[in-house]
């Protein structure tokens, strides 16, 4: 199976897990965001370009099921995937803690960016006192899911000589 088939398959699989399992897991009404995490993992495994493209696709899928304007998640996830990929280029060696640590930082930034950009496009209720708490809780839950998802993303994107992750 080529990467062109495996990537959409993983996207659908992550969407299914998000809608079936992760939506029922919540801490203070905050749920993990596996599609945002997938963008982070794609950036970590495949670099900036792959991170941006997979992030855009994951965001577009997420946009199908929310009330926020179409394209908001797509833009945020693409930016997060790109940023992680650009920073990943500077990594010299792999360590087991790098994916969860990256997920922790990138997912919290992603949630904050989603809130701020949402307010810019008219969803002013997104910027609220609980935004920081939401960002931290999503980041913590996503960090816990980062190690398995980075492996799945590595399988989806296929082998590449210079790839640091997954090991």
């Amino acid at each position: 199976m080529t990467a062109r088939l495996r990537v959409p398959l993983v996207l659908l699989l992550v969407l299914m897990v998000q809608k079936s399992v992760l939506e029922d897991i919540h801490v203070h009404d905050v749920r993990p965001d596996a599609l945002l995490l997938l963008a982070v993992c794609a950036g970590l495994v495949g670099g900036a370009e792959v991170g941006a493209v997979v992030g855009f696709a994951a965001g577009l899928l997420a946009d199908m099921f929310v009330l926020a304007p179409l394209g908001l998640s797509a833009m945020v996830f693409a930016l997060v995937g790109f940023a992680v990929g650009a920073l990943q280029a500077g990594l010299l060696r792999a360590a087991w803690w790098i994916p969860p640590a990256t997920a922790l930082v990138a997912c919290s930034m992603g949630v904050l960016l989603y809130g701020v950009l949402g307010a810019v496009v008219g969803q002013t209720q997104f910027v609220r006192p609980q935004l920081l708490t939401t960002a931290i809780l999503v980041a913590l839950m996503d960090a816990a899911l980062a190690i398995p998802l980075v492996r799945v993303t590595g399988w989806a994107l296929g082998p590449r000589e210079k790839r640091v992750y997954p090991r």
Partner: protein
Amino acid sequence: MAVQRRAVRPRFVLLLLVLTAITLLTLDERGTGSHVIDRVRGDARDAFAPVRDATDSVLQPVGNFFEGVIHYGDLKAENARLREQNQSLRGQASQAQDAIRERQALLDQLDLTYVGDIPKVRSRIVSTAASNFELSVEIDRGTSNGVAKGMPVVSGAGLVGRVVEVSHHRATVLLLTDPTFSVGVRLSSSQDVGVANGEGSRSPMDVDLISRDTKVSKDEVVVTSGLQQSVFPPGIPVGKVVDAHTPPGALQQNVTIDPVVDLQRLEFVTVLQWSPKS
């Protein structure tokens, strides 16, 4: 040269993706292509509905397990409380049959009496909010069952929310606690009208426009006002007054209400096939 091209390409791809996202956002916000976007979203939800139903049955136990792990402390406390409750209930077992029959008769009498003869569509909640930024639920009824955008959604206790997105077989209900939700309300004792606004899932709703001279008592029931152009029919219970006070110099009272419906434990809801009279 080739190295420079490789370095520029990811930025060019990102720029293209961001521009595409901005185009989609503009189309959706301006309403130019909103019917196309609504249709695409509706089709996506319909297409995903059977997949979700199938995966639910397989993956739900996994979700329940993790939910149990996360809420272990709550479950332990609830378990102790239930054991205690069970003990007392055993003592009442002999009277239970009669009580159940009486309760059922009462429930039949009370079954959405505030709704009157408005046609109803009963539905089951199949999913909670897909985003951490909205308070909504997805129900298993859509346009094929007569559900339309804007219809009020209620439960046995009172107002739940309104339909904001609808496809053939699914609909999304915005819960009344969502920060974008507003409803015209009337105080049951004084008949004064105001506007109740959602403030988030764990916060009471604020009621605006209640005059400082109005007498508001704690636990007073607040119902939908149903004034002209209101998107809800009159008389649906919305909440109970938690607090009412007038800050110094203010022209209106700060009234807060708790929704009468327990939104955390909803399983079935009723869509009212009602639209405001023009």
